[in-house]
């Protein structure tokens, strides 16, 4: 799953979809995931990168990441 190429993500976590005019706010970790998706990283790569930064279980990260991807898909932010 890839983030749509025209989705704009600012450093502050403000997300803008120029095709529909919709905008969203995400928290810092959400913003980081979006940036990594923009760089073309796979879900596994993103999961590993987050796991390196936080003291938590891989299962929890995978679940949260999966939920987040569901949300992105729901709002048509994924290709």
């Amino acid at each position: 799953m890839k983030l749509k190429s025209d989705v704009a993500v600012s450093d502050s976590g403000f997300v803008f979809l120029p095709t529909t005019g919709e905008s969203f706010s995400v928290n810092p970790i959400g913003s980081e995931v979006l940036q990594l998706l923009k760089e073309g990283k796979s879900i596994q790569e993103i999961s590993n990168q987050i796991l390196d930064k936080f003291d938590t279980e891989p299962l929890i990260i995978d679940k949260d990441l999966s939920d987040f991807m569901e949300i992105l898909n729901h709002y048509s932010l994924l290709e």
Partner: protein
Amino acid sequence: MKKAQLTIGVTGLNAVDNPGSGIPVIRALKEAKSFDVRIIGFSYGTLEPGIYMHSIIDKSYQLPYPSVGIDTLLKRIEYIHSIENLDVIIPNFDAELYSFIKISPKLKALGIHTFLPTIEQFEKRQKVNLNDFGKKYNIPVPMSKVIFTLSESHEAMRDFDWPVLIKGKYYDAGIAYNFDQIGLYFNKISAKWGLPIIIQEFVHGTEFNVAGLGDGKGNTIAAVPMRKQYITDKGKAWGGISITDEALLELTREFVAKTQWRGSFELELMKNKNREFSLLEINPRIPAWIYLAVGVGQNIPEALVNLALGKNIEPYKSYLAGKMFVRYSWDMIVDLKEFERISTLGEL
């Protein structure tokens, strides 16, 4: 090179809660790169704010209401023209367009240019004809039925689910969830805007608008889509954002090509949860949010004036997406003498 100096008459000076597009049109004309302008404001009421906005309107004249007839309108314009030497007129009200289209050959003979839809285009896109319009040009439109009496609503409602939109011929609409509410809106809207009343299928979704300009030969000269972000209780956009939806732009180009649309227009569309667009309305004029189009790189009023003057112009190819307009209201302090002048002399 010295820019041409044009005198342009503009209606729609009612910058109120349901604003006409005159003031943003004037703003756009003042920013035109291809000409300088002297603006003549045309008003119908004495409290249209534009009359008193002397920084952007050089002189204002009252026009007779469209219901008075086109001969009276033509005489009034002839009088104004004898003083102001008008080059172009841009009418901005739905209700006056029929009269201006009718007198446009006579205006041209006087040396006054317009760039309006043909009578046929104007009639076909009327709300009462929108179903046939959609069928003819294969453009998805919500189902609608026209009624002339309230008793017809029971028969008409057999084909609809609740709620439905109750719309006036020119303006105004309400959402009705039962027959009592149909009656309420029928009486309210017909008292103000006359008959018939249109019952239209209510489409759930997100509203989008496109402001555009067709050259009358099937070419789209300009098109800027906008998503409404803040909507007043009258359904008017008080804030919006330019977007890039290619499907919307394609639908717009298709509309212009199929109808050979001449002049400015606004398409009102609804996108449902399946991301399909329905065309709710075609307004045959510049919309009140036109300054957003100017702000993102397409000066539609300027292009319209150049087309009216018979110039060949290149279609706009791009615009900035993600730019917002946020409308605001502003109180002016007006001397009673000014109100007196426009009320008694019809000029200011």
